[in-house]
C-alpha cells in the first residue's frame, strides 16, 4: 500500500467511523449527534478512495493540488458542525436557566409553606 494523502485519508476515515460507532455503542454519544459525524466519515472515505471525483472537481474549481480539496471539505464541514454545536449549547443553556429558575421558585414555595 502506498502512503500518500489518499491512503492516509482512507485510514483516517475508517478509524474515525469506528470510533464514532464505538462511542454510540457505549452510549457516550447520542445517535442524533453521531449522524453528521458518520456522514462526514463516509463522504471523506468516498472522496479519498476515488480520486477521480476530487480531481474532476479540482479541475472545475481550478485547484492546482487536488488533495487540498480534502482539506477544504474537512475544514468547511468542521466549521459548520461547530456552528451547529454552539446553537445546541445556546438552546441547552437557555433550558438550564429555566430549570434553575423553576427549581428555585419551587423550593421557595415549599419553604414558604413550612414556615
Amino acid at each position, binding site marked *: 500500500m502506498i502512503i500518500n494523502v489518499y491512503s492516509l485519508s482512507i485510514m483516517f476515515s475508517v478509524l474515525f467511523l469506528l470510533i464514532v460507532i464505538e462511542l454510540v455503542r457505549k452510549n457516550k454519544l447520542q445517535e442524533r449527534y453521531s449522524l453528521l459525524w458518520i456522514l462526514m466519515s463516509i463522504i471523506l472515505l468516498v472522496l479519498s478512495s476515488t480520486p477521480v471525483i476530487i480531481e474532476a472537481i479540482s479541475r472545475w474549481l481550478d485547484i492546482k493540488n487536488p488533495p487540498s480539496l480534502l482539506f477544504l471539505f474537512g475544514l468547511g464541514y468542521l466549521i459548520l458542525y461547530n456552528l451547529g454545536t454552539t446553537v445546541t449549547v445556546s438552546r441547552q443553556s437557555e433550558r438550564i*436557566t429555566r430549570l*434553575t*429558575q423553576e*427549581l*428555585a*421558585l419551587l*423550593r*421557595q414555595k415549599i419553604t*414558604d409553606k413550612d414556615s
Partner: protein
Amino acid sequence: MRILVIIPAYNEEATIKSVIRRINLKMPQADILVVNDGSKDNTSLEARRSGAKVIDLPYNLGIGGAMQTGYIYAKENNYDIAVQVDGDGQHDPSYIKDLIKPILNDDADVVVGSRYISKSNYRSSVLRRIGMIFFSFLVSTLTNQKFKDTTSGFRAVNKDVINYFSGRYPVDYPEVDVLVRLKKRNFRITELPVEMHERQGGKSSITTLRSLYYMLKVSLALIIGTLRSSEE
C-alpha cells in the same frame, strides 16, 4: 394593587438589610422579594431575617436570569406592579412612589429611574460615563425615544410587562437591551429623575477590564435585536 419589590442580590450581605428596612419604611404596602443569585456570603440569611421573601438560586445565573426569576414569581403570584431595586443601596427607596405613579395612572408601562436627569448628584467614573453616553445614544437612535440613563436598574413595570419578562428576558447585561425590546413591542417607557447614592458596599459587577467586552456585546445584541421579529 399588589406591588412587589424585586431585589437581585449577589454577595450583598453588607447592605441588603438596610435596603430592605428602608423599602419597608417607604413602601409598607409592598412585598419584598430578594433573588439571591448564588451568593457566597450571608445575603440570603440577612434578607430572611429582615423579613423579605427570598429565592435562592443554586448557582450564579447572572443579573438577567436572576431578575427573570423575580418576574416569574411576580406573574405566578399575580402582582400588578413589579419594582426592581439594586441590593447595594444605590437606589433610594423614597423614589419608588414616584416610579409607580405613572403606572398607576396608566401613563406608562415601564418607568426608569434615571440618575441623569437634573437633580441627581451622582458621580461616576469617566469610563462608565463614556459607556453610558454611548448607550444612551445607541438606544435613543434605535428606538426614536430620548433616553438619558439606559443602564439604570431602578425600574417599575406593570402587569403586561411582568408577563412579557417572565417569558423572555435578556441573559447578560439586560438593562440596556430590554429598553429596545420593550419599545419594539410598543410598551410605553418613561424616564424619571432620581437621586442615586454611591454603592454602600460590595463590588460593581462591571470592572474596567470587562467594560469594553460589555459594550461590544450589548451593542451587538441591540443591533441584532432590531432585526428580530417582534412576535417572538
